[in-house]
């Protein structure tokens, strides 16, 4: 996030929420939003589902999954043609406005309305509210990022904030809502294949040398392998040893059957987690890790706020903090420099390596000031709740880069369109542009588009929440596993709430109960990946990753639905027990079974 959470209730005059079911998935953020609204802030929601945020919104644009670029471009189109943009900010603090203007000129509200089915007047109204109420904050989550053009979507949101001058001031900005308590921190200390612990790219020689000097060892200059391309690399022998820490890829990877199949090719697999996960069951070795309450350290929250965590309990049995396990393995391998005393010892090293972000955050300051916002380079620095203050950016010229992003419905046209745009705008070779599209479309065979998400009760693949007895035996009303279907689609198929249905495509099949709700448009369905009993990631598409960050398109999958009997449902459930709750490694594509059930045998 470019801004701090707490600013929403104080300064923000307008919220634009794109692709985030905030009240269910980030309730604390939603509370700040509601407090802001009580003070008169406006709310615009762009989402495929009519969530509770949408019910409370001043303007709700029900976008079909995957059409964020046209909608955001048409908002910019309205803002530019009606002269509502911040001319002073655009002139002094941004570059590439003319490129952007040219790129969005095609996206008139009328044209986008024909493409997405959103009322053109609503788009105009939303654009006006966003442009006229400053400071305006953009909040987004996985509904922006989990596409084959996720990076393009993110660029679009920052373009929108850039042309209206909503950057570098309190209560504004572009605010990705992070899904985990420490995902921001993990990224900042280099838990990414392309980034060093100092937050700089591994291809940067000077940055590599800085780290090498502290660690006294060589650092490879080649970026690592992204998580989402692991299966290919395991199959072709690039990876022969896999160590999974606090992750459950057997359930969370797209086309999870493919991942399970790829595990077979490994020599050895280790899973390190607080509970025995679905991935742990299929591993050769499981290392027990301590939970958050059983160790000391820091978490960096979504506002880049570094917060201390104190130990409340002793870890049970052999369980150890993650850093202890890693240090023990490293020492056994004969590596120097892993002889840490405690977590604070490591924190001091992080502060030395990543001085620009954490340099001034010693434990005493963190304790006294109840957490500090990174970057905080020295002891006098008060922390940085608002990034890009005064319109200063970290680009070489110090100005915000406005990046043209366009959209095509035809996936094969993408490269061509990008080239055309480059030529038309006469761009430099290394000036970024992106043409977005969708990998999958509806066909006669698969007439529904499934979009995926999360419910309030469960957390991700349920590695923790599925162990909660009270959720399992009653409190979780959505469990175990439902698929949301719109009224008209359900009526066409003769499905009512509680019916058993089979959702399938070429990659796999799941059996779930239907929940008929008018929260989603016709021909779209919504499912979650919380439950191994019916994990939508068996169906999601692992191909066509985002070219920059390699994120898969979780949000758009073409599927078909059919009603099944309770007997067939239980049969599929038993298969899933075998698939997920055993050490059995699937051999992929049990197509005979699929066909049998498909014909209603």
């Amino acid at each position, binding site marked *: 996030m470019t801004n701090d959470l707490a600013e929403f209730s104080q300064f923000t005059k307008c919220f634009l929420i794109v692709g985030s079911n905030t*009240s269910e998935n980030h309730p604390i953020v939603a*509370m700040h939003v*509601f407090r802001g609204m009580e003070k008169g802030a406006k709310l615009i929601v762009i989402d495929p589902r009519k969530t*509770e945020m949408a019910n409370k919104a001043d303007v709700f644009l029900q976008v079909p999954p995957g059409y964020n670029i046209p909608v955001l471009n048409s908002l910019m189109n309205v803002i530019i043609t009606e002269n509502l943009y911040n001319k002073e900010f655009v002139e002094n603090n941004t570059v590439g406005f003319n490129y952007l203007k040219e790129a969005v000129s095609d996206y008139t509200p009328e044209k986008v309305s024909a493409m997405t089915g959103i009322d053109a007047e609503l788009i105009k109204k939303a654009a006006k509210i966003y442009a006229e109420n400053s400071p305006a904050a953009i909040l987004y989550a996985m509904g922006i990022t989990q596409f084959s053009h996720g990076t393009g979507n993110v660029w679009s949101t920052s373009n929108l904030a850039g042309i209206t001058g909503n950057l570098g001031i309190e209560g504004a900005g572009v605010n990705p809502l992070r899904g985990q308590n420490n995902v921001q921190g993990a990224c900042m200390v280099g838990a990414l294949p392309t980034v060093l612990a100092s937050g700089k790219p591994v291809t940067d020689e000077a940055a590599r040398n800085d780290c090498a000097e502290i660690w006294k060892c060589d650092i490879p200059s080649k970026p690592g392998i992204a998580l989402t391309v692991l299966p290919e690399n395991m199959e072709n022998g690039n990876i022969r040893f896999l160590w999974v820490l606090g992750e459950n890829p057997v359930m969370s990877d797209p086309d999870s059957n493919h991942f399970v199949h790829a595990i077979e090719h490994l020599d050895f697999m280790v899973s390190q987690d607080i509970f025995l996960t679905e991935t742990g069951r299929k591993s050769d070795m499981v290392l027990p890790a301590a939970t958050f309450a059983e160790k000391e350290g820091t978490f960096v929250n979504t506002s880049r706020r570094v917060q201390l965590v104190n130990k409340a309990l002793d870890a049970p049995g052999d369980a150890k903090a993650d850093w202890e396990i890693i240090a023990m393995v490293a020492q056994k391998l004969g590596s120097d420099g892993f002889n840490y005393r405690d977590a604070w010892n490591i924190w001091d090293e992080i502060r030395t390596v990543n001085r620009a972000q954490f340099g001034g955050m010693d434990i005493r300051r963190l304790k006294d000031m109840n957490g500090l916002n990174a970057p905080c380079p020295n002891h006098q620095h008060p922390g940085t709740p608002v990034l890009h203050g005064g319109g200063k950016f970290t680009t070489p010229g110090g100005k915000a880069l406005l990046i043209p992003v366009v959209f095509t419905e035809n996936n094969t046209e993408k490269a061509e369109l990008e080239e055309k745009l480059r030529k038309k705008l006469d761009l430099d070779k290394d000036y970024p542009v992106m043409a977005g599209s969708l990998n999958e479309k509806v066909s006669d065979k698969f007439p529904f588009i499934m979009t995926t998400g999360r419910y309030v009760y469960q957390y991700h693949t349920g590695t923790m929440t599925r162990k909660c*007895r009270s959720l399992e*035996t*009653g*409190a979780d009303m959505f469990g*175990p596993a439902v698929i949301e279907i719109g009224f008209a689609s359900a009526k066409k198929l003769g499905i009512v709430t509680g019916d058993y249905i089979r959702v399938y495509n070429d990659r796999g099949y799941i059996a779930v109960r239907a929940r008929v709700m008018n929260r989603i448009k016709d021909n779209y369905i919504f499912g979650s990946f919380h439950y191994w009993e019916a994990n939508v990631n068996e169906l999601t598409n692992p191909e066509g990753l985002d070219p920059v960050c390699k994120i898969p398109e979780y949000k758009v999958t073409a599927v078909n639905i059919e009603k099944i009997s309770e007997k067939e449902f*239980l049969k599929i459930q038993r298969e899933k027990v075998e698939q997920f709750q055993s050490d059995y490694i699937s051999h992929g594509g049990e197509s005979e079974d699929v066909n049998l059930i498909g014909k209603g045998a």
Partner: protein
Amino acid sequence: MSFVVDEKLNSFVICDPSKCMACYTCMSACYQSAKERGKVAKPRLVVIHTESGSMPNQCRHCEDAPCAHVCPTGAIKFGENKIELHEELCIGCKMCVMACPFGCVLPEAEPMPSVNYMFEEPVDKFVAVATGEKSVAVKCDLCEGREGGPACVEACPNKALTFITSGKMENSTIDGKSREAVLDIVSMVKDKLSSQKKDSGKGV
């Protein structure tokens, strides 16, 4: 000058849909309260999503409660300031379920304590009520026996739920509404009179 409301009126919990953010915290709290008080561990209020908004739906504790009238065993009966629920007397005839005009009485069964559903039978919990479990009528009992009143009201993070007792109803709900209604009527009549005057003036 305020209305005198009969002190024997039933209390109830109600939600302000403009504040509800459908986070289901109330349902969790309800489940927990029922479990702690030794009742059937099921949420007694259910968040319903509709086109125009969402809010939890629960027993209104009607004064002339149809559920209490039809109950053949006295499991649901008229009590002091509430419609009482005695789960242990319920024979599961489901008459109250059909009689309730709000859909707030639900036939529910608790999983058997002797079966660990999570590990032993991961499949059969999918089928609504497994054999051997007795369904009983479950509805809001205003967390009887719980210190601090209804758990849902306490748990709501956005203060959308209110516990309404006859005193509160008198002050906030009825008084305010009646004043507003009178104001509306007065202004309407005034408007009409003045427009009539204008019209008649023109006519002459």
